[in-house]
């Protein structure tokens, strides 16, 4: 039975936005000052518990309260109501190089930063060589930090940060720094932390990262938890949200352009998955079966200069295949009434898993007309001899 290391009970956080600050405004509006305040709830009734040894990704659109929640866990912000309780030592990597002073040398800053992150002097002495090694800036360790390039700065800061020794580690998008090899080092280190049974709470915008390292993902939106569970589930919810927002934006843009008549020029009115040979409707196929995607396009007025795109996505949103009428070299005719088109996908070598089919109807000018992010789903039954999105008739034998 794993222990809860973080228990968040009914936490809400309110920010008061004051529109006035100067003495004159305060005097003039004295007594009515409540009119000049705006409440903003960054977090609303959050109830979570996180067990020891788990890696949790906090995801959500900008301004959804991810960082606020992380700061509340870290004790940097106090909740307006509710409580946050912890077990064990906590370290927060909300900013690399916290407390770095430009006038101090690299060496002095290492000690200061380490101390701020809760590493004792003894430990820093012990790790100092490792820290400098890891950062790869040994020749400059006794130079003032203000002369460092931004890359050197970040490397040094990160090297200190990975030597923290917490039970709970809070990370806020700091992994997105440095060049690729350095980022890989980062991920290795995070995996090392996981192996050592530390609890990690991660705020990130890189959804692939969540899928890769987290065993639980929590989606926040407008300060509320909208999904909480396996990363795949949570990512699906988040992507659907993003899609809905996008759709609203597209409609807004269209209605702005076209004034009152906001109806789209055309829409995809139906999608069918058919077996490649028998043309019977299917929802699951074997690897290397052929598939036909039949798309009904219905124009509202005459539709000319358009194209249709199709893509196959994994549940994590990675596109494994995509094409469109332009790439295929076929120019669809101008339409005046509903017409069906077939995408033929022979010998579809998909690996085992569930895939979603994404369709998009666009004008040749690039303007989107209609889009179905999850037009249909297809289940591929594998033979259990392989993993991944690609089905290959692989075998193994002595050469």
């Amino acid at each position: 039975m794993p222990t809860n290391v973080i228990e968040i009970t009914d936490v809400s956080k309110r920010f008061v936005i004051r529109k006035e600050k100067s003495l004159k405004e305060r005097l003039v509006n004295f007594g009515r000052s409540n009119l000049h305040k705006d409440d903003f709830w960054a977090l609303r009734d959050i109830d979570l518990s996180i067990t020891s040894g788990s890696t949790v990704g906090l995801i959500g659109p900008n301004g959804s309260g991810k960082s606020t929640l992380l700061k509340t866990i870290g004790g940097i912000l106090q909740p307006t109501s509710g409580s946050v309780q912890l077990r064990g030592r906590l370290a927060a990597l909300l900013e690399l190089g916290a407390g770095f002073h430009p006038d101090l040398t690299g060496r002095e800053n290492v000690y200061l930063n380490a101390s701020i992150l809760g590493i004792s002097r003894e430990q820093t002495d012990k790790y100092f060589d490792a820290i400098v090694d890891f950062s790869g800036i040994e020749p400059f360790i006794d130079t003032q930090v203000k002369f460092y390039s931004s890359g050197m700065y970040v490397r040094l800061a990160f090297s200190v940060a990975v030597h923290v020794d917490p039970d709970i580690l809070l990370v806020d998008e700091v992994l997105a720094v440095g060049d690729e090899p350095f980022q890989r080092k980062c991920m290795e280190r995070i995996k090392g932390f996981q192996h050592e049974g530390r609890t990690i709470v991660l705020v990130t915008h890189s959804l692939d990262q969540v899928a890769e390292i987290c065993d639980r993902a929590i989606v926040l939106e407008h300060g509320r938890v909208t999904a909480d569970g396996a990363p795949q589930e949570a990512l699906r919810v988040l992507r659907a949200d993003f899609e809905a927002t996008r759709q609203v934006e597209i409609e807004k843009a269209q209605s702005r352009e076209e004034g009152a008549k906001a109806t789209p020029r055309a829409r995809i009115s139906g999608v069918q998955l058919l077996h490649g040979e028998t043309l019977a409707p299917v929802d699951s196929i074997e690897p290397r079966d052929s598939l036909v995607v039949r798309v009904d396009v219905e124009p509202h007025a005459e539709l000319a200069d358009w194209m249709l795109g199709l893509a196959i996505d994994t549940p994590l949103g990675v596109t494994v295949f995509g094409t469109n009428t332009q790439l295929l070299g076929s120019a669809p005719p101008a339409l005046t009434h509903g017409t069906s088109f077939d995408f033929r996908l022979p010998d579809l070598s998909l690996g085992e898993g569930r895939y979603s089919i994404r369709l998009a109807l666009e004008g040749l000018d690039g303007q989107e007309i209609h889009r179905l992010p999850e037009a249909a789903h297809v289940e591929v039954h594998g033979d259990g001899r392989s993993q991944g999105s690609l089905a290959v008739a692989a075998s193994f034998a002595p050469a």
Partner: protein
Amino acid sequence: MTNDSAARAARLAAEPLRPAGPRPGFLTGTLQSIRDVLAHRELLGLLVRRELKARYKDSVLGFFWSLAKPFAMLLVYYVAIGKFLGAEQIPGRPGGVPQFAIFIFTGLTAWQLFSDIVVGCTGSVVANAGLIKKVYVPREVYPLSVVGAALFNFGIQLTILVGATVAVGQFPTGFRWLYFLLALAVLITFSTALGLFLAAVNVYLRDVQYLIEIMIMILLWASPIVYAWKFVDNALDGPLQSLYLANPMTQVVLGFQRAFWVAGDGEPFPANLGESLLISLGISVLLLWLSQRVFARLQSNFAQEL
């Protein structure tokens, strides 16, 4: 699961839950606050060193500049007040202040420490806004690091002061040092109490730091630093004199002068200076506790106000 992680899980299971961040409660949190600050004393030391090292890092003369200000003040007051206004006692002019240079430097040394702590603390939380928004450490360390750096500068000035007493052949001995220790204790607790309180208030009302700079300039004249006590004694009496003496900094400055201004032994001093210093110490400790509690109360919203 590896042994490592199993051991960690077992250890965590045995630990009780604790609230994140500073403890709530106005009265109950005192011990916890002290324990938190003590747990971060290494960081405190490093922050003090950062203050000191970063201050004059790229200047040629470095630390000399921290002494330049009191020396400049000494020179100005010595020439303007001692010579031109005739406050200095010289042969043929009785009624002045004997050893005027030592007298002034004694007062200025005490005042410099007071002003360093109060002004420095007031801006300390705002100056460390970047850190406060990103890392949780007990926020008291920021004002306290200012106190540490100020004490270091004070140490240097004090050494020079003692050197000067040796140079004029009037090294303070015996019971005088008790006055010094008592006055120093009052000075540190009182100014730290003020500093903690102002540091917290300054976050919400930035006007405070400008106000404080002006107040420090004015209050310099409310204590017998550039003029001697005997002039006040002549000018004020009754409740006004009591009021003047109720100022803890007046008592501190007088205590310092009792200790280092050996030539002033024949001069008048207010009665019961030791007792009033002891009372002030008691009040200052109480104030320090109160202002720490106010600080603890206000600090929960620091990160969002900065």
